[in-house]
């Protein structure tokens, strides 16, 4: 058994909150570059280039890429041979509290959905814990703005809807979202499981590097087909028209019930932030 101190977790989360908000992963940057080069509409190309300028400026100055520094969505893969000295939940929240203060990040969390008083420190984090074999703790912080979160949807499709039903639903979500989620978007699709697992799958799909297709050729082809269809919609960067509506599509799946085909679409903006550290 390996012991991890809660202070190690707090320090890592604080670092990850700041880093993730100021520096985009290389796979996202290179995809935006590639899309800018391939974009036939000049006004759209210009927007993509400004987005890249913004990303470079944020990294250089250590300031947030976007003012919506999000709710801190934290994934913890906890080794079964790890003992945490202290509370994981408390350690993560303290990390978010410190990171959002020290990084001059926006505090965007209200403590109650209807009474809406701001908690003032961006806590609580959204914490997803998964037990894994081994003695490591892998922490991922994925700050997620709500411009794109608000445009996400889940539908309990019927088995008879099949792959065409999935394609039509994903396209309808992107179409309806239009300019709101700050296109070009990253599209996370969850398929299968049940109601709540499906939504989490769609979120997890957003964590996959953009240059890493699904390992199963069937879903790799479906991702490719969906991306082509989305980029034929013409919505374009910021919704001003153009080819680049989405940067990528990632699908994650789980076994499901004989009666169902749950499908969740979690949209992310071009500021597709996430940062991981292994303790």
């Amino acid at each position: 058994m390996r012991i991890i101190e809660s202070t190690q977790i707090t320090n890592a989360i604080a670092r990850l909150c700041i880093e993730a908000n100021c520096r985009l992963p290389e796979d996202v940057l290179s995809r935006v570059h590639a899309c800018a080069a391939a974009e036939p509409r000049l006004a759209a190309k210009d927007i993509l280039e400004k987005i890249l300028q913004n990303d470079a400026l944020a990294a250089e100055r250590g300031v947030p890429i976007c003012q919506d520094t999000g709710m801190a969505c934290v994934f913890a893969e906890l080794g079964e041979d790890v003992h945490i000295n202290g509370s994981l939940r408390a350690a993560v929240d303290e990390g978010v509290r410190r990171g959002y203060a020290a990084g001059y990040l926006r505090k965007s969390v209200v403590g109650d959905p209807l009474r809406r008083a701001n908690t003032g420190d961006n806590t609580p984090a959204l914490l997803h814990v998964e037990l894994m074999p081994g003695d490591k703790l892998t922490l991922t912080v994925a700050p997620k703005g709500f411009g794109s979160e608000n445009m996400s949807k889940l539908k309990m499709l019927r088995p008879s809807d099949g792959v065409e039903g999935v394609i039509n639903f994903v396209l309808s979500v992107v179409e309806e979202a239009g300019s709101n989620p700050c296109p070009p978007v990253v599209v996370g699709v969850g398929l299968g499981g049940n109601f709540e697992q499906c939504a989490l799958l769609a979120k997890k799909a957003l964590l996959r590097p953009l240059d890493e297709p699904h390992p199963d050729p069937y879903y790799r082809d479906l991702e490719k087909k969906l991306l082509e269809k989305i980029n034929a919609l013409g919505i374009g960067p910021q919704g001003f028209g153009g080819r680049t509506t989405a940067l990528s599509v990632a699908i994650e799946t789980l076994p499901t019930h004989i009666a169902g085909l749950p499908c969740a679409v979690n949209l992310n903006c071009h500021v597709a932030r996430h940062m991981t550290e292994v303790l």
Partner: protein
Amino acid sequence: MHYDVQLPLTEETAKQLRAGDSVTLSGPLYTARDAAHARLTALLHENKPLPFPIENASIYYVGPTPAKPGQVIGSAGPTTSSRMDVYTPALLDRGLRGMIGKGVRNGEVIAAMKRNGAVCFGAIGGAGALLSDCIKEAEVVAFEDLGAEAICRLELEKFPVVVVIDTLGNDLYQIGRAQYLQERDQE
């Protein structure tokens, strides 16, 4: 077309602008997003004065990050305009002239914009670091308790935007997409 526009925006200038025009804005405007709009609306219902002069004013839908030491303001890109739709027609009828945000507006807002000669601009969503360089002053003028949602007076200098909906109700989100699809299909 490109225009350098001085704020406050006059009705005459507003009426020259067309959906798709690129514009740089310089001068004063006010920030307000969800919670501030709810309070402004409550003030209107109670017949109380608003905390800033609304006649010819422009509102930027933004909740910036806190300024680091030495910064005027933190990252400050636009938030989704449509969440303000429910509050906006009443403000337009009292003289609001310009709005900066991102995304579509509903029919009631567009009708009120046409009725009053107002313009909706779009700034690049997710480019908050770049846009903050065009904000030269920032001071809280109301609702300080709302934190990032407080109303601030900003002084802009050549702040880059695009006209997304003009005083005739032309909508770049429809026009731009149709143009792109037409160009693509002609190839």
